[in-house]
């Protein structure tokens, strides 16, 4: 019997969300987190099982009806002559993202145990609901289904920030919601315009891709097919760029991160940002390769600006969360550069960077959360010499920071090296070597501000806020990470090192999923 694995995964995750809420009534407050974590292991293990045992994708999901693995499609309803399907499937791009989602969700839930102390069952339930919606975004192959999941992500995220956030949480949550909604509108209009002008009778993204590639577009709204593609590209790009976020649409991110509780930041930086780059890769760069190649220089320029500008902003911050938030903007710039370059290594590297950055930023926010929970400070000027008293947390912080800097042996280096090697050889970006070189300067800036943060917080004499001890004696009332907190930290660190030493664990499938995208533009000699 064919097992509907993806539907099973989605169902299990939704069920975990509901079950947390239900079981939460019968167990003590402290136990709720444990229950939620145990429940979250189900989708995690299931997704890993699916990847290892059932996943057999061959090529990019959008570039052939049979390419995606584990496809399921059922007619849902027909609207205005278009058949809307429940249509899911995974390929080398989405499978790693699904596992990243389940992994980070479990890690986030575990790291939330000490810090989330009110409305526990609602919190964990929302996190699991968020996880389910995120999985849905990555597995949906029907446009309508994709949009439904896309919007479904916003709802739990809004509440997670607005209810459990910091002092200015309402502003941040509202900003997040208002920013992403018009962005979605632009995406929606652009995608709809494509659908209307293409010769399709379903909302399947695979069919849409085929129709666009076969030049089966009629003009629409007074635009020629070429103009329409460019206009749709622009609309989709702006919409997804907000989510990534790309400069200048980035200002919601630092506020959201600073106000969100750390476990939520983990998912926000780790997975939610990838929705934007995933959308860019799927729609802008796969459905509309001609338009993408035509404006690749511009996209790369935007990427470079994001890298450098984000890094400079990070440098000016003193709040640890803000530093990581701004450096996320910087890291996502590399993804843009890699996608625009349209070579095997650059597009594969950009996708690898999504996974890598998801793990690293997740780890970073978790460790910042630990520091904040223990010291009640996040400002680097208020902290000093933590290494002496919390060596394990400090070690993780150091490792995460170096991973962020792209230290060889960790996944960040592999991702960045792939992107750089690929984009230097790009044929789509004008002056590709020069553009690449400019973007690469980010690796110096990131080292600058992270080393500065490390020096301030971990080294020197022990000091937390006003409390200070002598150089060689005494201790302050802070404790190192507990075992429960350390498990997800070390798990993520292990994953980061594994991907740095042996990137093919993930890059193998990514290369398979992205090669077709590159061939669209280079015709096979990328």
């Amino acid at each position, binding site marked *: 019997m064919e097992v509907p694995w993806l539907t099973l995964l989605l169902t299990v995750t939704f069920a975990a969300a509901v079950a947390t809420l239900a079981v939460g009534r019968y167990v003590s407050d402290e136990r709720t987190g444990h229950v939620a974590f145990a429940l979250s292991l189900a989708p995690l293990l299931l997704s890993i099982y699916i990847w290892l045992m059932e996943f057999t994708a061959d090529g990019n999901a959008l570039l052939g009806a049979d390419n995606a693995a584990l496809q399921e499609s059922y007619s849902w309803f027909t609207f205005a002559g278009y058949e809307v399907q429940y249509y899911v499937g995974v390929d080398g791009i989405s499978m790693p993202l699904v596992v990243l989602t389940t992994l980070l969700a479990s890690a986030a839930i575990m790291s939330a145990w000490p810090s989330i102390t009110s409305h526990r069952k609602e919190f964990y339930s929302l996190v699991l609901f968020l996880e389910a919606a995120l999985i849905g975004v990555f597995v949906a192959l029907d446009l309508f289904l994709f949009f439904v999941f896309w919007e479904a992500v916003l709802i739990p995220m809004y509440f997670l920030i607005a209810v459990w956030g910091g002092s200015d949480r309402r502003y941040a949550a509202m900003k997040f919601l208002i920013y992403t909604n018009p962005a979605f509108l632009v995406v929606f209009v652009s995608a709809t315009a494509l659908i209307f002008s293409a010769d399709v009778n379903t909302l399947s993204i695979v069919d849409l891709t085929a129709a666009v590639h076969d030049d089966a577009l009629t003009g629409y709204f007074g635009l020629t097919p070429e103009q329409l593609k460019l206009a749709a590209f622009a609309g989709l790009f702006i919409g997804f760029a907000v989510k990534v976020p790309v400069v200048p649409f980035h200002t919601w991110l630092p506020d959201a991160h600073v106000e969100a509780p750390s476990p939520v930041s983990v998912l926000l930086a780790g997975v939610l940002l990838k929705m934007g780059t995933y959308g860019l890769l799927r729609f802008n760069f796969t459905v509309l390769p001609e338009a993408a190649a035509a404006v690749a220089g511009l996209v790369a320029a935007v990427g470079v600006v994001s890298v450098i500008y984000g890094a400079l902003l990070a440098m000016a911050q003193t709040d640890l969360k803000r530093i990581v938030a701004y450096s996320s903007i910087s890291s996502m710039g590399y993804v843009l550069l890699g996608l625009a370059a349209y070579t095997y290594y650059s597009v594969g590297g950009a996708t690898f960077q999504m996974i890598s950055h998801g793990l690293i930023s997740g780890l970073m926010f978790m460790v910042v959360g630990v520091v904040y929970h223990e010291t009640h400070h996040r400002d680097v000027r208020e902290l000093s010499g933590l290494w002496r008293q919390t060596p394990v947390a400090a070690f993780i912080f150091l490792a995460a920071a170096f991973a962020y800097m792209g230290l060889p042996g960790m996944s960040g*280096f592999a991702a960045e090296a792939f992107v750089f090697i690929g984009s230097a050889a790009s044929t789509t970006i004008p002056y590709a*070597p020069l553009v690449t070189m400019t973007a*690469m300067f980010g690796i110096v800036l990131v080292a600058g501000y992270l080393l500065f943060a490390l020096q301030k917080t971990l080294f020197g004499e022990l000091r937390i806020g006003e409390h200070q001890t002598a150089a060689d004696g005494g201790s302050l009332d802070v404790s190192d990470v507990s075992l429960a907190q350390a498990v997800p930290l070390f798990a993520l660190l292990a994953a980061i090192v594994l991907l740095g030493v042996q990137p093919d664990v993930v890059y193998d499938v990514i290369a398979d999923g992205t090669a077709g995208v590159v061939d669209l533009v280079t015709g096979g000699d990328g």
Partner: protein
Amino acid sequence: MTLEPGLLENVAVLIPLLPFAAFAVILAGSTYGDRFDLPATAFAIASVTASLLLSLVLLAELYTHPEIPTPFTAAEATWTAGGAAPELTFGLMVDPLSAVMAVIVTLVATLVLVFSLYYMNGEDESGLPRYYASMTLFTGSMLAFVFSDNLLMAFFFFELIGLCSYILIGFWYQTPSAASAAKKAFLVTRFGDYFFLVGVAFAFAAFGTLSFHGDTSLFTAAEAAIDAGDTVLGVDASTAVTLVALLVLGGVIGKSAQFPLHTWLPDAMEGPTPVSALIHAATMVAAGVYLVARTFELYALSPTAMLVVAYVGGFTALFAATMALVMDDIKQVLAYSTISQYGYMMLALGAGGYTAAVFHLANHAFFKALLFLGAGSVIIALHHKQDMWEMGGLRSRMPVTYWTFLAGALALAGIAPFSGFWSKDEALLAALTNAANEPLLLAPLALGVLAVPVTAFYTMRMHALTFHGEARSEAAEEAEEGGWPVYLPLGVLGALAVVSGFANAAPLGVKELSGFLGASDLYGYAATHLGYADAFTVNYALLVVALALAFAGAIAGYLLYRDADEPLKRRFDPVTEALERRYYLDGAQTRFAEDGVLEGSRWVNRFDVDVVDGLVDAVSTTALQSGDALRRVQTGVVRDYAAVIAFSVVVLALLVGLLGGWI
């Protein structure tokens, strides 16, 4: 001794693998904290000693069996298959150069770890597992770098070495200056590595391979591209080769602390002295020079790149040596001396003196490690005093240190027959010989010759101040030498400082190293592509001049400082001021980082908050305010609404009437 076929490969693989294994064990064990001190020490020393033995086996095997084809790949692993793109692999490449370098690294590492028993364990330092974990990680990474068979792998371990350096400089992390120096070291070398990585990306984009050997090596691909007149990276192939070579040189300048990225090395002396000996004198700093030697065939394709290498080297040799003249801290003197000596190696490479560079690298590794360990011995004896003005009179109290230090000092000063003399002379000889073919080499040659007496002068100044005259502090009066962990490394290295020069004492007709390295092939290569000489003949005039200059400098240094007096500083105030302030370059770089980049980032931040986010907030503010204004229409009085409705209906009726033509 002859090894079974295949066994040699295993030996080569184990050399870097053992320290990595020890690192993993120590890292895992460090959760036990200080209780793991002893096992950590044991694992570190055992693994590195084993690597040393294996390296010696490898070297002996290659030396006694010239028929073994080199270079060969001892092991290869795929980093990524790359999908449709070319794969990226990591391989261990064994050839005479890597075998020699492996022996240097493991030998110095072993001796330094033995010395650490005295310097670290003996002083009851806390955090020893961290120390030994970093040291083994460093040794493993350095060896992997040495055996790298392609540019990407070289970069990979080049950076890991930098990480170890960062951790070890900041070993005493509670000292703010150590934490700051660690940051500076990583950041400055990262700046150099940035260019290196750009070079890697460009090389791969341009030539499609990064390999160091084989039919499709980077060098043959580059050569073929130049011969074919290809256009790569949007420029012609020879420009691209120059570009790649100069970009890689960025990493070299950073790691080997060449001008203008040398500023991190003196600060790096904040680390424990064994670390300075191993990492910041003998091996890591050598990685840059080693990389140029490794990719010599790439540099030799570009006359411009070669000249840049020579100029950077020549200038740095003199520039750093002058600063060493005025330093008071013994480790600072050694640091600037290290920078200067690596300048000689760069000079040699740029001038086509491949053997000279590798030879000097080896000699320098031994005598500089010796000098650092000697300094370490003194520093511990004086309870962590490093100022030479508080030393003096240690000659009788620390005889072993004194005599071995003297051997190292004479080697550094370039006094025959100590090791430095032979290799430094060969470096100058290379520049002199090829200046006939490339007149632009005259300037770096002149700088290199000028640096000879300066080097001898500061070396003997340091030696005189440390060991001669009267004891100038209480600690110096009571100084005592350590036990065998001090004597053994100092003895071995002291002996090497005396004899290692005879490995290639060209004036005596000994050219063992040159022959072993197969340098004549490379000379021929350089002759083809650059018009350099394809062999070097001993120039006795140069020999005599250099030796005379060295003697003059050494004697002057000894005589002037033997009485622990500062005879020069007062007389040349503006000059010494400039030297002591390190030519104002450190300050300028710090100001650039703090007032330039950091302040600039604050400006950007203000722009972001006020303009970009300001615009976003303006949108929401506009919406809110217009809503606020409009809602005042809602009075809550039903009659008003009715009036508006009635009025609107009338207006609409009129409009419809007018537009429809009924009125």
